[in-house]
């Protein structure tokens, strides 16, 4: 097994506000890691650090052995240029709470945009892949629609297909079901379950305890910028050791 994500003592501050105070985490290839925690605990910020949407202040993050955002040369860290950061992001897919589909493009164009423009892949090859990805998330019939014509759950499934079109080795999910109507949550979770079953490495920030228990291989509970507790999801959820974990779980369960 190879380590897909390795975080060593990651610190992040916005001005004087310390959001992450030393996060350590290892996610193995093919593993689904769920991140739980109250809002403001820094879990979304940590996820955004993994693909360098946020710059970390201290520590190291490695994805598939690649140091994210920096390069070590002669014992000194050099910031990576825009192109290198973009190259690192190509293999890390991300799904956002608010979907963030491109509203001026059709569903198919949304999925095809990055492979065509970033990787300059052959358009017809990308098209075939995009269509099959959309079929996979159950939206093959909607490919000529604009995002504004879809429901939240459908939009989020398109967002997943869009991220997958880049053939990432790691997928990051930032509260993917939090902006959805309760009845639409299931369809997105089902898509994510399929993805997990196919062996995708996933880091999922979520409030869906059921999903964490059923699909997660590991669970970390964050509060106040630190990892309070981690372990196999069933164990942590059934018998939390820390009082903060107990308090949180008693509120959400």
């Amino acid at each position: 097994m190879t380590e897909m994500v390795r975080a060593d003592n990651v610190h992040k501050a916005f001005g004087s506000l310390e959001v992450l105070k030393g996060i350590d985490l290892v996610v193995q290839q093919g593993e689904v890691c769920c991140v739980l925690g109250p809002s403001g605990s820094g879990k979304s910020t940590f996820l955004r650090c993994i693909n360098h949407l946020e710059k970390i202040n201290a520590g190291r993050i490695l994805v598939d052995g690649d140091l994210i955002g920096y390069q070590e040369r002669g014992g000194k860290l050099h910031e990576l240029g825009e192109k290198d950061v973009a190259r690192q992001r190509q293999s890390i897919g991300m799904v956002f709470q608010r979907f963030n589909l491109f509203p001026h493009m059709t569903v198919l164009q949304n999925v095809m945009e990055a492979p065509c423009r970033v990787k300059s892949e052959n358009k017809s090859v990308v098209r075939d892949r995009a269509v099959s990805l959309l079929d996979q998330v159950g939206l093959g019939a909607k490919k000529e629609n604009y995002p504004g014509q879809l429901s939240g759950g459908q939009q989020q499934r398109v967002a997943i297909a869009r991220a997958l079109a880049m053939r990432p080795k790691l997928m990051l999910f930032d509260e993917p079901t939090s902006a959805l109507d309760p009845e639409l949550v299931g369809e997105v979770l089902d898509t994510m379950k399929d993805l997990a079953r196919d062996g995708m490495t996933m880091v999922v920030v979520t409030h869906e305890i059921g999903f964490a228990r059923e699909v997660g291989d590991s669970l970390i509970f964050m509060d106040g910028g630190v990892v309070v507790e981690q372990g196999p999801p069933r164990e942590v959820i059934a018998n939390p050791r820390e009082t903060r974990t107990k308090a949180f779980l008693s509120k959400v369960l």
Partner: protein
Amino acid sequence: MTTEQQETERARPEPIKAVPVRHPGRWVLIAVLAILAAMFIHLLVTNDRFRWSFIFLHYQDGKRGVMFTEPVLEGLRGTILLTITSMVIGIVLGVIIAIMRLSPNRILSSVAWIYTWFFRAVPRLVLAVLFGNLNILWDRIGFGLPFDHQIGKLFGINDLNAQFYSIKASDLLAGFVAGMLALGLSEGAYMAEIVRAGIQSIDPGQAEAAHALGMSRQLVLRRVVLPQAMRVIVPPTGNEVIAMVKDTSLVAFVPVTFELFFQLNQISARTFVVLPVLVAALIWYLIICSVLMVGQFFVERHFSRGYGSTGRARQRLRDIEVEQGGRITGEAS
């Protein structure tokens, strides 16, 4: 399904036939407007001092009306050309300055701010006259090594000339080019503010999602942010184009003769016919602006893809279907 069943179970009540609310004030206003319109048309038709035939049919001995004489058409071409070139300069500069203004680099954003400050503060008329006289500053304007004379002196060479190409300043910076630059540079400042507002109106999540897909900053701007910002940018830009058509008349002070209003003014100075010439100018400006408004309609429609009323209507229809427990349109097929 459920609503249909309900309809069969309960008889539909008689439709409401109520007396609508009367709006007597509106009718009074309409009557006043109608009278004013009638008076205006009466004026246009009966007052022979308009000299419609002078405008449309016979100008002096010619067979054409003053609107269609060669110098006026020449002026019209000049006005259109000046509008297009100065708007192109304005839009290109505006996009560049807006991007500089939003740059995280303080120096770039300050330079952009100073540019906008200067060109918005100086009246276009003053700019036009200024650019017409700017060639006093230089003998020749050229392209080559900057500060070539000073550098030459440093190494003991007098009169080092490292210009690859140069032209007499009074040939380049006069007339049409001066007018075009004055209008274009001034327009750049206004367009910069419009483009900046457009870019800032886009949800930062859009750029974030694009970056997360591995797109470069330039690609994000070109493919994701600007196309969406166009929805906000186009309507005020339409305003700017129309304002520019009219502001081209300011370059008469550069002076530029290749311009509509200047040409018409010349005719009234020569023939002592004032009002009909002004009316002719007015009609031309109305025609140009009408054509531009048609163009704006199509450009706006193009950039509202994905937001259009058809999309919203379909979305509403779908929402209603979901509420009534129906199937989502077209899905599962």
